[in-house]
């Protein structure tokens, strides 16, 4: 492909695209930095009752205090860590289960493939949150680990379905036929040809699922099924702020903003990744 002169429209589009990617990177990077910081330092003891009841935001307490007088900013910082751990953990589990099952289905005999595909479709028909709630209920005690596991399993169906379709598409390509003719074993085909080719699309999906997992964890915690207190999940902070939303609306605003910024950050990052990684899109229009 030789490009002699890049048209003006194309150039602005690429700039905008990289802007999207940069904003996403900054937002997610910020959360990551805060999460790492909380491992060594927080402004206050997260469970310590440092201030008065429901103090409005001030220099001492930038996000105000909760009913027990705990600093909300400290809790929101720790919330970043919990959100990232849950998001990364859930996506890792979903990737491990989903990609394996997806590849398996694509390579399987027709009946097994049909059965697996139908299973994925049925699981996807259930909202992620509902599936996750079922898994938490089945594991008994709500904990950070059970939340990660539940979300990972719930999301894996989405990943498996996508992987199966992508692998099938790649398998129909001429170079696969060539590799098969050349006598390559199927593991070698998967690792040499299939996975590298579907990776760009999968990684975009992982970033999107990451954002979804963060919201789902907040919802689980909001319902009391996520990480138990005193883990400062944003969902739990929102749930606790709900009871005082008239007298202290700031208690709901700050965790809400934190949640929105991370999810938007992840989505922008996914958008940017898609544009960079997908040559067909780059040429399109």
């Amino acid at each position, binding site marked *: 492909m030789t490009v002699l002169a890049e048209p003006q429209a194309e150039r602005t589009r690429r700039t905008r695209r990289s802007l999207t990617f940069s904003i996403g990177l900054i937002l997610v990077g910020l959360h990551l930095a805060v999460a790492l910081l909380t491992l060594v330092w927080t402004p206050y003891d997260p469970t310590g009752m440092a201030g008065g009841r429901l103090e409005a935001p001030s220099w001492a307490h930038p996000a105000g205090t909760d009913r027990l007088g705990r600093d909300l900013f400290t809790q929101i910082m720790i919330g970043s860590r919990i959100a990232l751990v849950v998001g990364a953990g859930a996506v890792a589990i979903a990737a491990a289960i989903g990609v394996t099952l997806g590849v398996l289905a694509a390579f399987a005999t027709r009946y097994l493939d049909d059965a697996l595909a139908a299973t994925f479709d049925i699981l996807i028909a259930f909202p992620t949150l509902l599936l996750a709630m079922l898994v938490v209920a089945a594991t008994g005690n709500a904990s950070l680990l059970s939340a990660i596991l539940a979300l990972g399993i719930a999301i894996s169906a989405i990943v498996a379905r996508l992987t199966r379709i992508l692998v099938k598409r790649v398998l129909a390509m001429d170079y696969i036929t060539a590799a098969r003719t050349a006598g390559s074993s199927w593991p070698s085909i998967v690792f040499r040809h299939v996975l590298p080719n579907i990776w760009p699309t999968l990684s975009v999906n992982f970033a999107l699922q990451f954002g979804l997992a963060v919201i789902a964890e907040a919802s689980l915690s909001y319902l009391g099924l996520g990480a138990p207190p005193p883990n400062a999940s944003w969902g739990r902070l929102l749930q606790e702020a709900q*009871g005082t939303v008239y007298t202290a609306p700031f208690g709901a605003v700050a965790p809400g903003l934190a949640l929105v910024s991370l999810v938007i950050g992840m989505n922008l990052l996914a958008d940017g990744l898609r544009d960079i990684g997908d040559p067909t899109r780059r040429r399109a229009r």
Partner: protein
Amino acid sequence: MTRMRTRKNHGLLIAATAMLVLAAFGRAGAQEGEADAAAVIRIGSLYEPQNLDNTAGAGQGINEAFNGNVYEGLFQLEDNGEVVPKLALEHEMSDDGLTYTFTLQPDVTFHSGDPLTSADVKYSIERVASENSKSSRKKSLSTISSIETPDERTVVVRLSERSISLPYNLTYVWIVNDEATDLTSSEDGTGPYRLDAWRRGSSISLVSFEDYWGDAPANGGVTFNYFTEATSLNNALLTGAVDIITSVQSPDSLAQFQDNPAFIVTEGQSTTKEVLAYNDRVEPFSNVKVRKAIARAIDKERLLSSIWGDYGTLIGSFVPPTDPWYVDLTDVDPYDPESAKQLLAEAGYADGFTFTLETPNYDPHPIVAQFVQSELAKVGITVNINIITANEWYTKIYQAHDFQATLQEHVNHRDIVFYGNPDFYWGYNNPEVVELIASSETSASEAEQVEKLKEANRIIAEDAASGWLYLYPQIVVSSATVSGYPVNGLNSQFFAYDITKRAQ
């Protein structure tokens, strides 16, 4: 006597004056600023009854609307916790305490025009105690062995064993006409109001009953307006669509009324207790020193103000001030972390211990759990919080007793009896208390009953049988133009007949 704080706003006088001025332009009728005997009082509530019969699973809402208003009992539980005769003019207990003879008020008629007779009373009591009655109270009437009606105005109730609480238990037995056919969607009572209309999903309106045997209501009627959601109920009061809210459940929503001179916020005393219940059967909670240490390690005053701001009451035991056997026991185990540590050391837990606190997932339990966790950490006790649903609480804790400690709100009036039942979920078993509570019911006099239960109350406090964190407030908010309403809401009742509204 009930202690009560009325938060009248500083601007009340100004508001009243302003209303007087405004009223000059209003409709004529009663004198401006004076009680208008024809005014209809509009009451806002969240508890719409399922039907109109309290023996048919109608819910607490029917007691709120009908107890004392539409139906009366032989006795009535007043707002201050006292039990007074109502349709029973006189009553007499035999020396062995097994026979009660009631003489009925004369000239009482039902809303249908039928006169009240002893047969109606017999029918009404048997209705509550009957097999298909869904009344939550029917078990407490199980000592009744027979009811006789020697004449029109005399009822003789015979018991299988003494039951000093019989008059109290009769306060929730509505006296209904034995000829009434449909009590789930209509009524036939003897109260000062009769049912005017029930619009399902919306309201119940009551109007004065002309032939009422007692004093006529101070108002022209009442309408209970039902809301499904607290915010819309609050908005209805703010916009003047209702005059009064029977019970405000969240301190947060009070903020909009507190500093507004057009409203009065009144705090009464509820019977709802926030309890940190230990499983007294298991180590280390079987050790009284450990329980006392925990009681002393928690700053309950700070907890209460965190949850409710300036509202609510501290309690030193399970008995609220509206129970006849209330004693102020808050100084038995006052907040004192140092002595808590000492007690733990004496109990052999100098290095503390770890336990799991089963916490219902709804407000205020999770926040209370975190407070307890943080307070107990200071004396070396590690608390793991496990959040559970109300359903799980019932099966795992209430039924299976599979827990170390839990949080729960206990709403009932006169429920100290739970400590006399060693099989109750918290497993408190002190033979002395079991004996006192069992024998209190068969006391020969109320004084004896009160004496025994006060003693039981003191013992459970000394034993720190559970952690009694605080008593919820019962908050009624009204427009500044109405007065004369009950504030304690005992057994969900809301007597409307003394409420007046100033003309404006």
